[in-house]
């Protein structure tokens, strides 16, 4: 089977003042469809950078990134935006919900970019909220929800347009132990029961155990990989 994500020879450098800092050195990585993979590494290892590249938030300085058969490193900024809306669902450490919108409206946001009718959007939103178990909180604003509930709204938003990838950056970093496990179990459920490919960056080994494969980065290069207990 062809990998859903294929990273080949990717280099990423940033300009810091007049100097150029190379954050990723010649990285290769393949991710299979339906995989739940965790990216781990110390601060500064480049794991978030790699995640951003795979998610199409940024472009590599050199190398290829192919996702679902498409060379996303060749796409322009506005093409990438369109691509993201169809292929990627993001989940962030600090949820990043719109504070002024209800849970429902937040989940609906990605669908506004599609051609779906208002009724169809409502349907999809309801389904997503049902899946994360927050139907009874749909009218609440983020300020009226707990951290765990907010993250679940964010997950609903991430899956509502049925994307190819679920990209998570420290999704449990701001949650207590119990809530974190709930969220991770939800991600597992999405992965096992709905076949979603999940790519998660984390520095918490306990969180990484929920994944199938753990990949370690250090100083911008892959150092090791292992099969997880899950």
């Amino acid at each position, binding site marked *: 089977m062809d990998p859903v994500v294929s990273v080949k020879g990717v280099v990423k450098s940033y300009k810091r003042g007049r100097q150029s800092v190379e954050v990723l050195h010649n990285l290769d990585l393949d991710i299979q469809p339906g995989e739940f993979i965790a990216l781990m590494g110390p601060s500064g290892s480049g794991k978030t950078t790699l995640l951003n590249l795979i998610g199409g938030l940024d472009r590599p300085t050199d190398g290829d990134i192919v996702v679902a058969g498409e060379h996303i490193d060749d796409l322009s900024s506005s093409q990438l935006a369109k691509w993201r809306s169809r292929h990627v669902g993001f989940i962030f450490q600090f949820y990043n919900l719109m504070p*002024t*919108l209800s849970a429902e409206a937040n989940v609906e946001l990605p669908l506004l970019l599609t051609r779906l009718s208002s009724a169809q959007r409502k349907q999809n939103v309801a389904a997503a909220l049902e899946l994360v178990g927050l139907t009874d909180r749909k009218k609440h604003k983020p300020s009226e929800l707990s951290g765990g509930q907010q993250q679940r709204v964010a997950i609903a938003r991430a899956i509502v347009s049925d994307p190819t990838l679920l990209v998570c950056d420290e999704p449990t970093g701001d949650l207590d132990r119990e809530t974190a496990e709930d969220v991770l179990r939800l991600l597992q459920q999405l992965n096992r029961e709905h076949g979603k490919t999940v790519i998660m960056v984390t520095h918490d080994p306990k969180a990484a155990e929920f994944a199938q494969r753990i990949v370690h980065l250090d100083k911008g290069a892959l150092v090791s990989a292992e099969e997880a207990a899950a």
Partner: protein
Amino acid sequence: MKYLHLVWAGVWRRPGRATLTLLSIVNAFLLYGLLQGFVSGIGSTVADTHADVLVTASRISQLEPLPMSQLPQIRMTPGVRSATPIVIFHGAFRTSQPVNMRGFAIDPDSFAATNTDEVIPPQQIEALKHTRTGVILPALVAGQFSLKVGDRMPLKSLLWTNHDGTNTWPLDVVGIYKSNPRDIFFGGSALANFDYVDQGRTQSNGTSSIFLVRVNDPAQASQVASRIDALFANSPDETKTESERQLAADSVKQIGDIGFVVSAIVGAVFFALLFSVGAVMMQSVRERTPELAVLKTLGFTDTGILALVLAEVLMLCLVSAAIGLGLASLLFPLVKVSIGFDVKAGPVILVGFGLAVVLALVSGLPPALRGMRLSIVDALAGR
């Protein structure tokens, strides 16, 4: 518009700040509406004048009266259909302000002859004829002072002293007519009896302030005017006869500078507003950088964010403008009564909305560009 709730939520993200900004924009448009309405009212008088009406006044000055002996000669001039004397009778009623009512003393019989388009209902002129102390009031004024037919109204004249030594002239309301605020003479003017005023006043007896002349053929108006003036060219009381339209144009010219002053004031106000709205929007974008970045991650394009911010500014400015212009238009009738000119609301409001759009685009563009250009990665990382 499926994005409407998103734009609306963005505007009201900080309700206090949005309200203050809204109020300051409403305020600016209220001022604009009132000032520009006033100017437009003055400018609108020219178009609505009668083409077949001439006004004969003294060539020396508008304050010089003309002898009544001129009237029969004017009536006999070829082309003249009818002529009537009018004495200026402006004054104050119930207030201490010098003028709050325009008044004219007319001769009911000859006035009726010139009243061919029945601006004043003929039966009211008849009533005036039969009541020496009678006065016909325009509806606007009657409403302003709650006067009805039969009421007594003492008018304090600006010009004429009564033979009892005071400036007060007791009048009885005999009719109320529907005024046309666009009519120079009969827009908001009270009409009293010429005989009553002429016989009672202590100066200028036997004279008239002006003569109102109706011609047979509007196309011949200027020729008739010249003929009338030729009659009195070498007399001690030279006349100057102009069409009503010409008169209106002259007075408008005199006030022409006001338009400039108003534009300068409105310009200053909007200049300050540009800064104020621009600062608020810039701050809003700065605060929301992470949120805007998230929208980009979801797939909103850079231009999409630009459009979103501009849409917010536009919504804020248009809603505020609507409220401000709405309030101003509620006050237009007041303006009408005070200056006697009709306000042309349409153009004022249209231009007002145009200003709102320009305001929104100019003040909103820098913040919108900032939002458009933000780097997703930097914003999410908190840089």
